[in-house]
C-alpha cells in the first residue's frame, strides 16, 4: 500500500515495485483517511495476507504522523499484519529520527523509491 497525496509518486512506486515483484498486489491512496478506513476494514480479517505500507509524511489533510497516531489505535491483529515504512521527500534529519523512533515504523526511506530498496524491504 502506498499512502501519498502525490499521484505521480504513487505511480512511480507502483512501477518500481512491479519491476521487482510483477505479481504484487499494490493499492495506492491519495487520501490517508480513506487508507485508514481500508486498513481497518480489510486487515481485521484473520485470513488477510500481510502487507507493507509506504507512508508519506507531508500530506495536506492528514500528516504521516497523524496517520500513525490513528494507526496506533487499531486492533493488535490489524497492526500485526502491516509493516509500515515512511517514504518521504524530506531530507530533514529530524524527520528521519522521528520516523525511526516510532515503534510502528520499521524504517525511513528517502524518495525516490528504487528497486534495490524494494528488494531490501522484501527480504526483511
Amino acid at each position, binding site marked *: 500500500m502506498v499512502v501519498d497525496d502525490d499521484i505521480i509518486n504513487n505511480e512511480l512506486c507502483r512501477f518500481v515495485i512491479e519491476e521487482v515483484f510483477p505479481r504484487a498486489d499494490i493499492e495506492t491512496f491519495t487520501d490517508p483517511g480513506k487508507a485508514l478506513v481500508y486498513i481497518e476494514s480489510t486487515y481485521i480479517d484473520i485470513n488477510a495476507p500481510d502487507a507493507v505500507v509506504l507512508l508519506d509524511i507531508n500530506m495536506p489533510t492528514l500528516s504521516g504522523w497523524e496517520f500513525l497516531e490513528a494507526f496506533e489505535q487499531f486492533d493488535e491483529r490489524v497492526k500485526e499484519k502491516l509493516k509500515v515504512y515512511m517514504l518521504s*521527500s524530506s531530507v530533514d534529519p529530524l524527520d528521519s529520527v522521528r520516523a525511526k523512533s516510532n515503534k510502528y515504523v520499521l524504517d525511513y526511506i528517502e524518495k525516490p523509491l528504487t528497486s534495490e530498496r524494494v528488494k531490501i524491504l522484501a527480504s526483511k
Partner: protein
Amino acid sequence: MSRDVTFIKDHMKTIVRRKFLLLSCIILVCIGVITGYAIYKSNHELNESEKWVRHTEQVIYQSGNILSLGKDAEAASRGFVITKDSSFLDQLNTAQKTTFTNIEQLRRLTRDNPSQQMRIDSLDFYIHKRLDFSYHTVELRSKQGLASAIAFVSTKQGKFYTDRLQEITNAIQREESALLKQRKQTNLISVKAFDKFLVAVFILMAVIIILMVITTANYLIQNNEKEKRAAELVIANRELVIQNEEKGMRAAELFIANKELAFQSDEKEKRAAELVIANIELIVQNDEKGMRAAELIIANKELAFQSDEKEKRAAELIIANRELVFQNEEKEKAGQERVLNERRLARSQQVAHMGSWELDFNTNAVLLSDEACRIFGLGDGQNQQAFETWLSFIHPDDLYFASKTVNESLSSLSNISLYYRIIRGDGSIRHVFSESKLEIDTDAKPKGYYGIIHDVTEIKLAEEKIEFDKNNLEALINNTNDLMWSVDQDFKLITSNKPFNEIVRNMSGSSIKKGSNVLSAGFSEVQLNRYKEFYERAFAGESFTEIEYTVLPVELWSEISYCPIRSAENVIGTACHSRDITKRRLAELERSEITNDLIQRNKNLEQFTYIISHNLRAPVANIIGIAYAIHFKKLEPKKEKEMMGHLITSVQKLDEVIKDLNYILQVNREVGEKKETVRFSELLENIQLSISSLIRQEDAQFITNFQDVDQMQALKSYLHSIFFNLILNSIKYKSFDRRPVIEITTRMRGNTIELIFKDNGLGIDLEKRKDQVFGLYKRFHSHTEGKGMGLFMVKAQVESMGGKIFIESEVNKGTEFRIEFEREWKTA
C-alpha cells in the same frame, strides 16, 4: 430626628382623623336624608295600598249593592205577586232609582280597568233587564192575575237575570280581590325591601358611629400622652439649666484654686528671702550669746573664791553653761542647715539656669541671686546692681521693646513677662525669659519687684535647629516628582512631600493632613488590604520594593519601596518612596511585544522554509525516479510515454512551487504602492459577477451589511484576494445538507475597521487545527480542489496591510473570520 418623624406622623394622623370624622358626618347626614326619603316613600306606599284596599272594598260594596238591588227587585216582585201589596212596589221603585247612581259610581271606581267596565256594562244591562222583568211581573199580576204572573215567572228569566247578576258581581269582586292581592304583594315586596334597606342602613350607621367613637377616643388618648411628654421635656430642660449653672460654678472654683496656687508659690519665695534675713539675725544672736557666755565665765571666776554654796552655784553655772553651749551648737546647726538650704536653692537655680532677683523701688537697686549673676556673666560678689546696669545688658534690638514693656508695667504696677536677649561682658549673646511680680509691703504699698530670670539660650538654639532641620527636610523631599511619605505604627501619616499630597488630593478630593490615617484615602477594599499588608511587613522590620499598577486616573506603573524607621532597636514607623516607572514599564512591554512578534515571525519563516523545501523536493524526487526509470529500464513505448508525461507534470509542479514562493515573497514587498479607496460593496459585486455561475450552481446566498463603513484605503488587489479567497472557501466548504449562506458585515470600532465573514459551512475543528488553519499547503478536506494556499495568502496580505485576522469556528455549524484594520494605515 425620630422625634420629628413621630411628630409628623402624629400630625398626619390627626389630619387623617379629622377628615375621617368629617367624612363620617357627611355620610351619616346622607344616610339620614336617604332614610327620610325612604320613609316618606314607604309611607306613601302604605297610603297607596290603603287607598287600594278601600277602593276594592268600595267596588265590592257597590257591586254587592247592585246585586242586592237585583235581589230586592226580585223579592219585591215576588212579594207583590204573592200578596198584591203595593208596599212592595215602593221597594222596586227605590231599587230602580238607585240603580243608576250605583252603576255610575261603580263605573267611576273602575275607570281604569276596561275588563271591569265591560262587566259593569253587562251588570247594567242585566240589572235593567231584571228590573224590567220585575216590573213586567208586577204588571202581569195587577192586570192579568196570579196565574199569568206565575207563568211568566216560571219562565225563569228573572232568575236567569239574577243569576247572571250574581255571576258578574262575583267576577267583578274576584277581579278586584285579585288586583288587591297583587298590589298587596308588591307592597309586601317593597316593604320587605325597605325593611332590609333600613336594617342595612342601621348597621352601617352603627358601624360608622362606632368608628367615630374609636377615632375620637384615640385622638383624646394621644392628646393626653402628648401633654405628658411636653411636661417631661420641660422638667428635663430645667435640669439641664441647673447642671450648666453648676458647671459654671465649678469652673469658677477651679480658677480660684489656680490663683491660690500662684499665691502659694509667691509665699514660698517670700519665705526663702525671709530665711536669708533670719540667717543673718541668727549669726548676730550667736555673737551676743558668745559675749554673754564670756561674761558669765568672768562672774563665775569671781564667785569661785566663796563657800560651798558658791561652788554649788559655780557647778550649777557650769552645767548651765554646758547647756547653753549645747544650745549654741544646736543653733549653729540650725544656722548651718539654713545655710545649706540656701546653698541648695542656689544649686537648684544653677541647675535650672534660673536665677532670682529683687528690685527695690527705694534704692532702685537690683539684688541678683548667684545664678542670676552667672546668667548675666557677672562674677561672684556682684549681686548688687543698679537698675540701669541691668538695662545696659539688654541686646540693642530688643531694648526698645523691653524697656517699653517694663515702663508700661511700672506705670500700671502689673506683673511682667518678657523674652529678650542680653549681651554679656564677654560679648556672648544669651536668650533669657524673665517673669516678675510686684512686691507689696505691709501697708499695701508697692515696694519693688521680685522675679526669676531663665537662660533659655540652649532651648532657643535647639528650636532654631529644629526649624532649620524641618526646612532642610522639606526642601529635600520636595525636590523630586517621586512620592515620599512616612507612616507610624497606627497607619497615621508622619510626613509627606508635595507630590504625595497632590496625588492624594486628586484621588480622594481632599488633602491629607499629618496624623490622619493613610488607609482611608479613596482606595478600593482590595487595594487597602494590600497596602495594609505592605505597611505591616515594614513594621516587622522588612525593607522591600513592590510594583503597583493602577488605571485611574491614568495608566500608571509605580515602584514603591518601603523602609522601616528605627529608634534604638524598635521600629516606630515606615518610610515610603514611590517612583513612576510607567515609561520604563511600557518600554519593557513594547520590547517584549516586539520580541514576541519577531519570534513568531521567525517561527513562521522556519515553517515556511520547511514547507517550501519539502514541496520543492517532492517533485524533484519524482523527477529523479522517473529519470532513472526512463534511462535504466527497458520500457514499452506506451509506458515510456506515460513516464514522460509524469516527468512534464513534475517539472511543472516544481515550477509552480517556485512561482508560489515568489508570489508569497512579493506580498511583503508591495506595500506602500498603489494605495487607493476601495469600496467593499463594489468589490463584492465584482467578485460575485466573476463567479456567478458557481454561485448559481451552489445556490449560495449573500447577506451583506456595509452600513457602518463601506470603504477604506487599501491595496485593491490584496483586498480583492482576501474577499475572493474567503468567499470561495465558504462556498467550497459548504455543509452538505444546507445551502451556503455567507454573511459579510463591516463595523467601525473606535479607530478600527472590522470585516466579518461568516458562513454556515462545514466548520473547522479548531481544537485540533488551530495552528494549521493559516498554514501553507494545509487542507482539511479533500473533496474539492485546492492547494491549501488560500488562507495563508489571506493572512499574509492582511498582515502586510497592518491588520489582524481571527477565526472562530464550530464543526458542522460554520466559520467566522474577523479582520481588523487600523483606520490610519500603518506599514507592517
